[in-house]
């Protein structure tokens, strides 16, 4: 992305951007949670940015290292302009909720489910927020830093076939 474009984005969202870094691989925006949906819609619809794909959604747990414990990280890619962008939202542990972007990018669905599965971050209004890689009876969220690597899980009661049809 060129400098003028970044300046334009910074001006348009002056009140919502917490910080901005031009990292070695792509520009990185940290944005207020309230502005997330507006910002992502802008990324998709602005004719000069035109992010067509959400490549990846994940989170980073800064347990005991930062006040705002979770950082949700979005990666976008534009096929038209061949540029990438990283977007971050910081969350407190007691309020680890962020609005879903599935209505803007339907491809975000599974990535958000995985993020919920691994970190316990709630994606508000998500159409289908179930665990994806783990099973419904799993206790805790394994990629949190306070989840011990050798923790054992309780045994799961035998499920009847009709019960296993729909996972909670």
């Amino acid at each position: 992305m060129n400098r003028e474009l970044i300046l334009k984005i910074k001006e348009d969202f002056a009140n919502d951007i917490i910080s901005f870094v031009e990292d070695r691989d792509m520009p990185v925006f940290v944005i207020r949670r309230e502005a997330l949906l507006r910002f992502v819609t802008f990324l998709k619809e602005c004719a000069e940015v035109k992010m067509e794909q959400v490549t990846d959604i994940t989170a980073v747990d800064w347990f005991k290292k930062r006040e705002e414990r979770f950082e949700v990280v979005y990666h976008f890619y534009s096929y038209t302009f061949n540029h990438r962008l990283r977007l971050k939202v910081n969350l407190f542990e007691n309020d680890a909720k962020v609005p879903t972007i599935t209505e803007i990018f339907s491809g975000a669905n599974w990535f958000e489910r995985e993020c919920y599965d691994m970190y316990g971050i709630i994606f508000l209004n998500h159409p289908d927020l179930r665990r994806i890689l783990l099973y419904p009876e799993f206790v805790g969220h394994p990629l949190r830093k306070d989840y011990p690597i050798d923790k054992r899980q309780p045994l799961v009661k035998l499920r009847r076939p009709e019960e296993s049809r729909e996972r909670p």
Partner: protein
Amino acid sequence: MSDLNERVQEITINMGPSHPAMHGTIRLLLTLVGEKVVKCDTQIGYLHRAFEKMCEANIWQAIFPYTDRLNYVSPLMNNVGYAQAVERLIGIDVPERTKYIRVLLCELSRIADHLTCIAAASMELGAFTVFLYCMEARDLIWDRIEELTGARVTPAYVRIGGLARDLPEGFNERVCSILPKIEKVISEVDGLLTNNPIFIDRMRGTGIISSKDAIEIGFTGPCLRATGVNHDLRKRQPYLIYDRLEFEVPVGSRGDNYDRYMVRMEEMRQSIKIIRQVIKDMPDGKINIENTMYILPPKEEVYNTIEGVVNHFKLIIDGIQVPKGEIYDATEAANGELGFYLVSDGSGRPVKCRVRSPSFALMQGLEKMVVGGYLADVIPTFGSINMIGGECDR
């Protein structure tokens, strides 16, 4: 007529995980009306081995064996992808010869991966001969990989800043000698499948996805190119020496199973072309960087000098000290964009080692591809996606 429709009941069937076509790692809950699929709930995770959690507990160099087990059909590509991400995070450049060797191994792996995909997909349609032919050709590649790395599927060959060892004497000539055999297999498979009416009936027009949907869902690699999007990271964001090589990117038009098959066939031919160029131009020289902060010192030094021992010890116990920062680095793996998102706090262990695997996004699109089609079309569609459990579930 409406009376008839009311009597048609929806039934739910369970396909997998113990289904021969589901590779043992996928469960599809299919809702059918007659034989038409109206809903498909894809459930993954049967091969989840906590890749990211294990990475966070290990030093940077010790992650290579884990990356082997992501896409276990083309493990060297994962090695290269991970090594490249860490190297970019540190800011080091590998020697020229290493780049050539990496490209050579990547393209060999790509052929092996595509052969496996075509083999498995066509066997599921009953073409057992094709399966055997492709496996034979894949074995030729795996023999060479075994000669080089000592293992067939879990090589852990690439290192941060270099490679585990140099190519053995006469390796390139032996690679050259298997290429005509692979070409022969490809043309034989071409003759058996491409114009085969049974194969075309099953593949043509099934599992269709439009390019717009494919991009939005997160498709990359051959499955995206089959929908008509000319996108290959080797061309658009060149890494290693791909900008110096001459090759074409095959593109489909319909986005159906047949196009995905055709794209893979052509990509194998292009990979062979790349391998020939790489072998022709491969320079001599060192394979590792000199800086022993990142690469183990030579064994003579470790055994004979105290500095060498300390250096070796620190690297093994504390790990490579990767500077604070983060990076997202993507390479074009056989199935699509393989991205590594690494976060370092300046210590020997990653804070976060995220894999953006192509199969995960491809599986997300499966529902869109099978709904509206027949139950029997699920098999070729799933086969042509080439879902690799290890990569999808991590």
